[in-house]
């Protein structure tokens, strides 16, 4: 362990680390993000250790357990370096062969190679995988290279250089100006200019100031922040330290979802290591600047992603928001000036400072600079994390990077921004993604959750799902959100159950406008967006539910019927035996029949039938 006291010592440490690591030394990089872990990557790592150990290669070939590579669909993902051979869906049984064939003989194992679903092409090297090719990885760049639990890995790649530059070459005002000029906007959803936020807090009166990292990533379907913290926690810390210096804060908090145990663990390790190296705590890098950072795990309340509720939660109170102004920059945590940014915003800060505002602002568009990470999920071939420059189009993300929709189904829309956002139908997929264009379409950038919906997604049910979510998560403090969302949910539930009436759509629109205008915090103000945007783009689906009593996507149970096609049914009895409602009857080798009075529409028969004889209407 080394205590780094000056920029020169940081430089020396980096050079020592780079010199001691041979770039040509063979090593195995295994993704250990949450997704790959679920699929067994920890066992794969262990198998590599055992295999290399038993062959006496433990010193010659290195093993790095990294954070999330982003390509979660194909996990566990293993990359052999320096060759760059990319293996997907690797199991424990594959390890011995990878060592003997690929690491020792340089041969490629055919069955572990990635096949591009779009072109059918076989891809051997990581850099050639289309999923990565079209991305621009600014924030996630090191996720596949570094061990997030080892600070030296980050330093070897130039980590903490931005901090060193800020502390020793720039006055705090200059740091704020640099961030302002870079055009960096908050990545948490609303896109407020980060530099402006910082300068308001810096100028606020008071000796004690706080900074907070909002890591309460609550939008369902969004996990960018989790992967940044799991894969490169030091970049978040570095950003926070730079921000604290610029603002004049000496204490910081990371408010993190407790549902992310691995991110909490890696962040804890990172804080301890940064303190040991003199990069956090007292007299950081010998500059005389002090900062301590604490972790506060959240306890499962979506509303705590709202900044005033989040601060109440840190203060050990129930997480209810309060009216603004005063804004946190003036009166925040314990009444002191406080600056809150989310994980991805903080993680961009070291890049802005290290590379400079001009280099940074050249990425992206005029109004929205830099990159944005999206979590591409839902009905998509390549589920995973995607980092693209602002201004990329949805069609590039869904088709070029995401590899299109599975089972050759048609894409209906992309839902952006979770319960606060809206959907963008396929017709608008060529619109560049930036804060302004999305707003025009009735969607929002949001934190970056991007859920792809295929033709089997019922947009009314999707809207009902989000409204149900918001209803449960509404803290109940203000009436429009507490009761208004309940009223909207009741109407939506009615529509999906075949009880919709003429005028329901107009009523939803009216309620939505009122709730938006009169709610206390962002949760209520944006709660209607998923409903209003699906009405705007898919009004006909609502009408078919209400007027014809049909759900064309076959999702809404009350509006569909299961039946058996007598011509296709072979009478095998598979469905009859497994039907939980005992609704299916028929003699062996004779066509079976579903008793509609007993059918609970669970879909078991449809799943089980090998002859496509079960029909849904």
């Amino acid at each position: 362990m080394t205590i780094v006291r000056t920029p020169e010592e940081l430089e020396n440490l980096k050079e020592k680390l780079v010199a001691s690591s041979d770039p040509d030394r063979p090593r195995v990089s295994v993704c250990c993000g949450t997704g790959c872990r679920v699929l067994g990557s920890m066992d794969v790592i262990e198998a590599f250790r055992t295999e290399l150990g038993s062959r006496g290669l433990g010193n010659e070939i290195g093993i790095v357990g990294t954070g999330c590579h982003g390509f979660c669909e194909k996990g566990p993902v293993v990359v052999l370096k320096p060759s760059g051979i990319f293996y997907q869906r690797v199991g424990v049984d594959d390890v011995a062969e990878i060592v003997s064939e690929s690491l020792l003989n340089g041969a490629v194992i055919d069955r572990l190679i990635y096949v591009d679903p779009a072109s059918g092409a076989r891809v051997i090297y990581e850099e050639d995988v289309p999923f990565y090719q079209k991305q621009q990885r600014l924030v996630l760049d090191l996720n596949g290279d570094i061990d997030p639990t080892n600070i030296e890995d980050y330093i070897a790649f130039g980590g903490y250089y931005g901090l060193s530059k800020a502390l020793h070459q720039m006055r705090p005002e200059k740091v704020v100006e640099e961030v302002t000029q870079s055009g960096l906007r908050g990545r948490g959803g609303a896109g407020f200019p980060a530099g402006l936020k910082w300068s308001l807090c810096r100028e606020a009166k008071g000796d004690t100031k706080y900074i907070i990292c909002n890591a309460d990533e609550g939008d369902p379907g969004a996990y960018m922040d989790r992967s940044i913290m799991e894969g490169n926690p030091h970049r978040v810390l570095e950003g926070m330290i730079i921000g604290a210096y610029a603002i004049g804060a000496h204490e910081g908090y990371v408010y993190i979802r407790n549902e992310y145990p691995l991110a909490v663990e890696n962040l804890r390790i990172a804080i301890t290591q940064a303190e040991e190296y003199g990069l956090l705590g007292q007299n950081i890098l010998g500059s005389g600047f002090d900062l301590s950072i604490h972790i506060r795990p959240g306890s499962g309340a979506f509303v705590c992603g709202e900044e005033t509720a989040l601060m109440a939660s840190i203060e050990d109170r129930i997480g209810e928001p309060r009216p603004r102004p005063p804004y946190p920059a003036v009166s925040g945590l314990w009444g002191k000036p406080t600056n809150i940014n989310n994980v991805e915003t903080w993680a961009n800060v070291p890049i802005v400072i290290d590379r400079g505002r001009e280099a940074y602002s050249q990425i992206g568009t005029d109004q929205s600079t830099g990159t944005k990470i999206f979590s591409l999920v839902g009905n998509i071939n390549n589920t995973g994390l995607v980092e693209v420059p602002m201004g990329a189009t949805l069609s590039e993300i869904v088709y070029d990077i995401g590899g299109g929709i599975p089972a050759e189904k048609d894409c209906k829309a992309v839902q952006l921004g979770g319960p606060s956002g809206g959907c963008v139908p396929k017709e608008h997929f060529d619109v560049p993604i930036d804060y302004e264009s999305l707003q025009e379409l009735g969607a929002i950038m949001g934190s970056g959750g991007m859920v792809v919906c295929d033709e089997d997604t019922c947009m009314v049910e999707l809207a009902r799902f989000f409204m149900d979510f918001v209803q449960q998560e509404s803290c109940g403090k203000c009436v429009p959100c507490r009761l208004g969302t309940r009223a909207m949910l009741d109407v939506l539930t009615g529509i999906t159950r075949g009880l919709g009436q003429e005028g329901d759509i107009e009523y939803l629109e009216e309620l939505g406008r009122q709730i938006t205008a009169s709610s206390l915090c962002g949760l209520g103000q944006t709660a209607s967006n998923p409903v209003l945007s699906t009405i705007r783009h898919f009004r006909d689906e609502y009408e078919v539910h209400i007027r014809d009593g049909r759900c064309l996507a076959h999702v809404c149970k009350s509006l569909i019927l299961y039946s058996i096609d007598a011509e296709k049914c072979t009478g095998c009895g598979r469905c009859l035996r497994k039907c939980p409602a005992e609704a299916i009857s028929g003699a062996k080798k004779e066509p079976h029949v579903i008793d509609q009075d007993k059918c609970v529409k669970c879909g078991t028969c449809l799943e089980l039938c090998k002859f496509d004889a079960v029909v849904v209407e």
Partner: protein
Amino acid sequence: MSFQPTFDASEIEDLLNGKRGGEHPSLMSVLEEVQARYRYLPQDALILISESMGVPLSQTYGVATFYNAFSLKPKGRHVINVCTGTACMVRGAKKVLERISDRLGIQPGETTEDGQFTLETVNCLGACALGPVVVADGAYSGEVTGAKANALLSKVMAEAKTV
């Protein structure tokens, strides 16, 4: 999984003593530890914590009932958690949840009468590539279908019987 531990005031006092001396003794972190120990927050524990920390009982009760992580009723020995995040939902989590709920005879948030099973839902685990995701006693299963959920339940139920 251990059997339901009985409430022991001295344990909570030890916990509180260990917590003291930090810069910001946090009510929520104390409650989290008690919840983890007993699988719920016993009333006596809430009173003891309030008195020891000098926090009004109304505030402790408010916090204990506001956040999803806390429960005033004991949770089952086996907790089955179905992710109902958007990604899991569009991949069929609703069906999976219904299947498990039907089989256990309880609604999400409820515990079976014998205290064996609690069915919960979570808004998103961030494991969207594997959706629908079900977590049974901390072990993740991905790409769960109705049939797979049935098999998973049978396994957990068989294990419950052998304990």
